[in-house]
C-alpha cells in the first residue's frame, strides 16, 4: 500500500506544479482579455484578472477605426498585414526551397562559404540594419509600401527558411529520389514528385514561421511606415498607447484581434507539424 500512496503523492504534486505554472503563464493573457472587455479602457488596480463590466466597445472601436477621410483604416491595415506576411512567407519559401535542396544534395564550389555567409546574417539582429535599409528603401522609393516591407522581411526570413529546409531535405533519404530516377524520373521530376511531397511538413512549418515573424514584426515596420494607411496591424496597435493618452482597452482588443489569426493557422496546420511524412518509406 505504501508505495502506492507515495506514487499518488508524487502525481498530485506534479499536477499541482503544472497547474501553478499554467496559471502563471495565463495570468497576463487573462489580463489582456479582461482589459479588452473592460469599457473603462484603463487597467484597474486589481489583482483579479476579470473585468467588472463586460462589453465589446473596445473591439468595435478597433475594428471600425477609420481616418479623417472616412477610409476604413482597420480593414486596410489588416489587408496590409495579410499581404505582407503572406508575400514574405511565399517569397522566402519559394526561393529557399530549391536553394536548400541544392545545398543539401549537391557539392559545388562556394557551398561552404555560402552556408557560412548565411549563418553570419542570422547572427545580426535585424534592427541593426534599420538605418541602411531605410536609406536603400528611400532610394528605391519603397518606403511606406508593402513591397518594401516584404523585401526587408524576406531578407531575414530567407536564411532561416534555408536552414530549416536544408535540414529537412538532408533528412530525406537519397534512395527515394534515386528510386524515382531509376523509375524514369528526371532529377527535376524526382524533386517535384517525391522530395517535395516528403518535405511538405517542413515546408508548411517554415511557411508558418516566416508568416508569423512578418505578422508580428514591429520595429522595422514602424521605422519604414509613416502613412497610417500603409501600417501593418502591430504598428497600428502601438498607436493606441501613444504619448498623450493610452487606450489600453483598445490596445488589448487589438492585440487579441492580431493574435487570433495566428492561433487559427496554428490549429489548421498542426496536423502537418506532428510526425514527418517520410515515415514508412525505408526499412521498418
Amino acid at each position, binding site marked *: 500500500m505504501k508505495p502506492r500512496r507515495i506514487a499518488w503523492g508524487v502525481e498530485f504534486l506534479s499536477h499541482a506544479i503544472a497547474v501553478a505554472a499554467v496559471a502563471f503563464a495565463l495570468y497576463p493573457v487573462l489580463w489582456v482579455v479582461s482589459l479588452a472587455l473592460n469599457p473603462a479602457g484603463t487597467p484597474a488596480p486589481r489583482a483579479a484578472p476579470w473585468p467588472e463590466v463586460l462589453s465589446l466597445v473596445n473591439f468595435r472601436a478597433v475594428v471600425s477605426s477609420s481616418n479623417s477621410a472616412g477610409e476604413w483604416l482597420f480593414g486596410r491595415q489588416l489587408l496590409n498585414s495579410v499581404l505582407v506576411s503572406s508575400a514574405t512567407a511565399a517569397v522566402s519559401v519559394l526561393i529557399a526551397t530549391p536553394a536548400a535542396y541544392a545545398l543539401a544534395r549537391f557539392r559545388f564550389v562556394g557551398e561552404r562559404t555560402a552556408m557560412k555567409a548565411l549563418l553570419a546574417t542570422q547572427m545580426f539582429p535585424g534592427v541593426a540594419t534599420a538605418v541602411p535599409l531605410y536609406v536603400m528603401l528611400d532610394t528605391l522609393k519603397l518606403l511606406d509600401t508593402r513591397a518594401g516591407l516584404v523585401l526587408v522581411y524576406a531578407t531575414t526570413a530567407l536564411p532561416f527558411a534555408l536552414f530549416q529546409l536544408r535540414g529537412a531535405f538532408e533528412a530525406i533519404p537519397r534512395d527515394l529520389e534515386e528510386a524515382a530516377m531509376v523509375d524514369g524520373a528526371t532529377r527535376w521530376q524526382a524533386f517535384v514528385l517525391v522530395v517535395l511531397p516528403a518535405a511538405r511538413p517542413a515546408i508548411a512549418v517554415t511557411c508558418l514561421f516566416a508568416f508569423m515573424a512578418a505578422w508580428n514584426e514591429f520595429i522595422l515596420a514602424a521605422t519604414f511606415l509613416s502613412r497610417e494607411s500603409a501600417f501593418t496591424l502591430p504598428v497600428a496597435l502601438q498607436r493606441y498607447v501613444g504619448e498623450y493618452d493610452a487606450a489600453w482597452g483598445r490596445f488589448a482588443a487589438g492585440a487579441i484581434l492580431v493574435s487570433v489569426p495566428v492561433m487559427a493557422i496554428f490549429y489548421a496546420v498542426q496536423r502537418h507539424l506532428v510526425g514527418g511524412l517520410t515515415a*514508412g518509406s525505408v*526499412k521498418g
Partner: protein
Amino acid sequence: MAAVTLRALRKTLGENAILRGIDLHLNDGEFVVLVGPSGCGKSTLLRTLAGLEEPDSGQVLLGDRDVTLRPPRDRDVAMVFQSYALYPHLTVRENLAFGLRLRKTPEAEIARRVARVAEMLSIASLLDRLPKDMSGGQRQRVAMGRAIAREPSVFLFDEPLSNLDAALRAQVRVEIKKVHQTLKTTMIYVTHDQVEAMTLADRLVVLSAGTVEQEGPPLEVYRRPASMFVASFLGSPAMNFVAATVAPDLARVTAEGLSLGFDAARFRGKVSAGQSVMVGVRPHDVSRRPDGGLRFTVDVVEPMGFEAYAHGRVGETPFVMRLDGHDALPAPGDQLSAAADVDSVHIFDPVTRKALG
C-alpha cells in the same frame, strides 16, 4: 530483356578506388548473384549499372546499346533498394504505378499491370495503404512489385532481404526465384547471404576489393574455389587452412598432425615434391575415421542438433570439423582421428593465395 556487358569498369569515390576494372557479361535472362565482403563495391557496381553513378572509365552495355553516359531513366532497368525506398506519400497502388505514369503508360495498362503484380506478390489487399502502415515484409514486397510492374529489361536487387527476419527471408527468397522463372528477365542480385547466393544464382560472381575474384555456377565456385579468398568466403563455417608440404609421392600433403591424400590428377604438374602449400579442407568434408590422416585436438564443441561443430587444432593450426549430431560428442581435450576425401582437399599457393589446381 537484355544481356548486360560491363567492360573495364572503374570508379573512384573520393580517394578510394572502388571498382578497379570490372569485366562481366550477363546473358539475357540470367540470374547473377554478386557476393563479396562489405565495402568491396557491390552497391557501387549496381548503382553504376543503374546510372546513379558515372564510371571514371569503362563501358556499360545493355543489349548492344552503350548506356555508359545515359541517365537512369534511359536504361530500362529497375532497382530494388535495400532500404526499399518506397514513396512515403503514395499508396501502394501509386507506388506500383509511379514508373508507368512517368512513362505515360495508358491507364488501362497501368491498372492491368498493378493488378497482375499485386496478385503475383499477394499484396492485393494492401493496394490502398501507405508505406508507413505496413510491416517490413509487406514493404519489401511492394518494393519488388514496383520493379516488376515496370517490366524492365534488367532487375537490380541490392540486398533486398537483409532487413527481414529469417523465416520471411526464406519465403521471399523462394518468391524471387519464382518471379525469375515466370519473367525470365536478367537479374543481378547483391547479397551477403550464402544461402541466397547458392540457391538463387545461375551464376555466382565473387567480388573482392573492386575486382572480380571468381565467377561461375554456384556449385562450381563452391567446389573449386579459385583462391583462398573465395574458399573462405563461401561456406560456413569457413574452410580450414593448414600450411603443409607436398610429399615426394606427389599424392599427399603433410604437416604436423596432418597427412592427406589429394587428387593427383587434378594437381599433376602444378605442385612439386617438397613444395610449401596451403591445404584447404571444409569442416563438412572432414569425418571421424580411425587411422585417418588428421590428428585433431578438441577445444570447444558447438552442438546444433542434427550436427555439431568441433573447434580445435591440427598441430598448432586452428581447425573446425563437423560432427554428426547423433554420435557421442567429444569432450574438450579429446584427440580425434579424422579423414577427408581426396576430392575435398584443396591446395593453394601460400604467396599468391590462388588455387593450384
